[in-house]
């Protein structure tokens, strides 16, 4: 967004002719966003391969200073934008959340590359967090492995567009324009596996269920909590064979309580697929009719 005086001054408020080139009338939000979007300072913070491409984007050939991402600051306290440039591991997500909490508001997160967006090629890894958005709110996702500098620039410009649409007047728009201080993101804990403090209750519930089930099934060794769900059917079958009739109610508690249940997700996916197919057919028919018209 550029400050075009003529365009800005085309409002209901009349500007005297002699002052037309000197005065601009705009909303506070717009002015504020204009300043913010053109002076986004990213944090000097590299995680993995993508960091190399981020450096390439910052250096002379691509040079993101041209777009107002002027300097990279090594301290979170001077940064507006966190570019999560690479694979987020469980060991690293703890410092990352801390860094995010130390950034002054307004703050933005850009997930650079496949790993930061959703785990990427390393998703199945036992030490890999499958996407930064599992812990932090992400504003822009840039696909690629790694994204080319052009793609990163495109993502950064997309972030600027997003900022243009935000409003100080609307407190719900972004947390920092609301009343009172925004809550810090809870820092994950490294236990037997990484623990998101927001899921503490859920883990406790699952542990109770597991304990009762252990009694119920008379099993000595139980698979780890999460595998219970994936292997629910097998477990149930095996248990029926071993321990006689099964209490269905007790088992059903093990079903997912967070996220979309498996069957429902399947339905949604099926619907999406059908819709995509319909759209495709529509496009094809349009193209055909266009060709006829020509």
């Amino acid at each position: 967004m550029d400050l075009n005086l003529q365009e800005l001054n085309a409002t209901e408020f009349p500007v005297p002719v002699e002052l037309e080139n000197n005065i601009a009338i705009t909303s506070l939000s717009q002015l504020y966003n204009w300043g913010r979007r053109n002076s986004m300072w990213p944090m000097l913070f590299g995680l993995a391969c993508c960091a190399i491409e981020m450096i390439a984007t910052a250096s002379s050939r691509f040079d993101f200073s041209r777009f107002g991402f002027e300097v990279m600051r090594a301290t979170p306290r001077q940064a507006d934008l966190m570019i999560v440039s690479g694979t987020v591991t469980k060991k690293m997500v703890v410092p990352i959340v801390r860094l995010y909490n130390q950034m002054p508001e307004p703050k933005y997160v850009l997930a650079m590359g496949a790993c930061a967006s959703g785990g990427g090629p390393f998703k199945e890894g036992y030490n890999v967090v499958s996407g930064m958005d599992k812990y932090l709110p992400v504003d822009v996702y840039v696909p690629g492995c790694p994204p080319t500098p052009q793609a990163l620039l495109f993502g950064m410009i997309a972030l600027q567009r997003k900022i243009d649409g935000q409003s100080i007047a609307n407190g719900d728009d972004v947390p920092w324009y609301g009343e009172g201080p925004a809550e810090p993101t809870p820092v994950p804990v490294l236990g037997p596996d990484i623990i998101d403090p927001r899921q503490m209750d859920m883990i406790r519930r699952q542990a109770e269920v597991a304990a009762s089930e252990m009694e119920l099934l008379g099993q000595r060794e139980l698979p780890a909590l999460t595998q219970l769900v994936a292997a629910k059917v097998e477990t149930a079958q095996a248990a029926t064979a071993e321990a006689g009739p099964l209490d269905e109610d007790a088992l059903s508690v093990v079903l997912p309580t967070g996220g979309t249940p498996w069957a429902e997700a399947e339905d949604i996916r099926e619907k999406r697929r059908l819709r995509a197919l319909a759209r495709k057919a529509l496009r094809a028919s349009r193209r055909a009719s266009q060709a006829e018209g020509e």
Partner: protein
Amino acid sequence: MENLAAAEQSVAKLSIEDSIEYLKSNHSQAIKLDDRDGYQGVIVDSDQLLDIARVIRDQLGFDYLSSATAVDYLGEGDHMEMVYHAYRSSGGGALVFKAQTDRDAAEIPSLVSVWRGADFQEREAWDLYGIRFPGHPNLARILMWEGFEGHPMRKDWREAYYEEERKPFDSRWPGGHVHRAEEKNVFGKNVSYPPDIDLNRLMDNSEEAVYSSLGLGVDVERIMDKDGFETNELVVNMGPHHPSTHGVFRMVLTVDGETVTSLEPVMGYLHRNHEKIGERNTYLHNIPFTDRLDYISSMGNNHGYVLAVEQLMSLGRKYNPPTYRCEALRVMMVELSRIVNHLWAIGFWLNDIGAFFTPVLYFIQERERILDFFEAVAGSRMMCNYMRFGGLFGDLPERIKSVSNLTNDRVRDYNTMQFLTEMINERIPRTIDELEILLTQNEILIERSMGVGILSAEDAINFSAAGPLLRGSGVAYDIRRADPYSIYPELDFDVAVEAEGDMYARYRVRVTELRESVRILKQILPRLEATAGESIWADGKPGAYAPRVPHGESYGRVENGKGELGYYIVSAGGRGGSSNPWRYHVRAPSFINLTPLGHMSKGYKVADIVGILGSIDIVLGETDR
């Protein structure tokens, strides 16, 4: 007496076969030949491992322990095995020796007292395989955190997103019912907790745990008396978020005033389970993963891996070695990425010692040029995924053309060979000349780097240092010459070596290697012209998509920009060959080169530490894997 000394001398020059024979005849009770199909070396009785290791080092002269890694043979003999590859620092092949132990109470004596280079590698084996090493000075987890449940590389340990033992997964192929792994996990995340988890005892004690596990034992309250001057020892934490640690690396320093008294590297912040994923993948799947190890020089990573798998494939019947043109192209790509790597390493090292970003910007300019070439040839700037078993992804294109990657808004369109000729004969030498004029005799650079971070030749060998770190300490060990592969024997180049062992010597080694790489490239160009039109595949068509690799083990190693990159691959399971590696281990130079960091940093100032780290040249993708 003289006879005895002479006898020892001759023993130290025995060939690998004779060395094994020597071990067998002199220590028959502790040694047995590894007679499994496709295996090499000897199996040492683990009770006598230490003694045998000393014999191997002192009498047989294998003074350089390249790699030490564990293999879990669950279902294939049900034992754990440590595999050691020892070399002579004067050159030659590997003496492979192994020690076996029970899976349940795995325990193998530590070899740190023989080769200090085994330190981190044994810690890794403890962390990922749960093998205990009595005699190890600090057997703590290294890649995962203290308190993590289980030893994840064991064959019966399953990750939270576990689907099947090996790829391709049934959910993807055939049929293609791809699902999001999150939906199958009750927490919607990549986590899995033991059923008896006790949340009440959990606090965020990761910080404390890290410091206490380091065994620093620093008491900040304690006031020391230093020559009548009262002072405190202080612990300084650097990283994992620090602009000069070259990634998410962490160092915990103990300082006395400005002087570093001890340094403990902490890593694992980018441990992305390369090896576990690698064992699920097919052999071909792993090539793009190797790109992401040392992400500055992906071509070199490809090369080491394909060499290792080709070694195994050559045991079978259906194998064609790569053609001459293919070898020439491989060497060219590897040398170009070595140039990229060294320019990057020197540039960021200069960053660390105060020449902030100006030199590196000029180097990145040159890097972009080479990356353009990679993009035109392999399709990607950084992650080239270029080499295949017995061949390559593709030959050079006729022209280098791109509309998406504009230089000054001009569409690039060059003849490939012309582009290469210009780059190799003019642009890169010009950049190196410029670099030398501005830096080599620069007074500030000399002041900052001469005599800092010294590593002696004996220490460098004992710590298993590799690459410029080893050669900067006066050991002329370059795998391209010491244990040659590909077409390097017929190429004319010198091994760069400097005797001083300080930061400046390492810088000089890198600059010399840049020049030597250009020298090699100049010899490659006529070879490419001579073989123009020849196929890159031996029988004219690409190799098998999913090759079945004969059973056995192999260790493929190459001289990468950062040092010796080795791949230890075991093919086991299945009938008549496997489609997935049983064990896939990366001997990462960045990881092992960090072993002497604490030793090298002792006694220098805090401000030198980032410089010393920069002069080792690490990349975290490879350090943590």
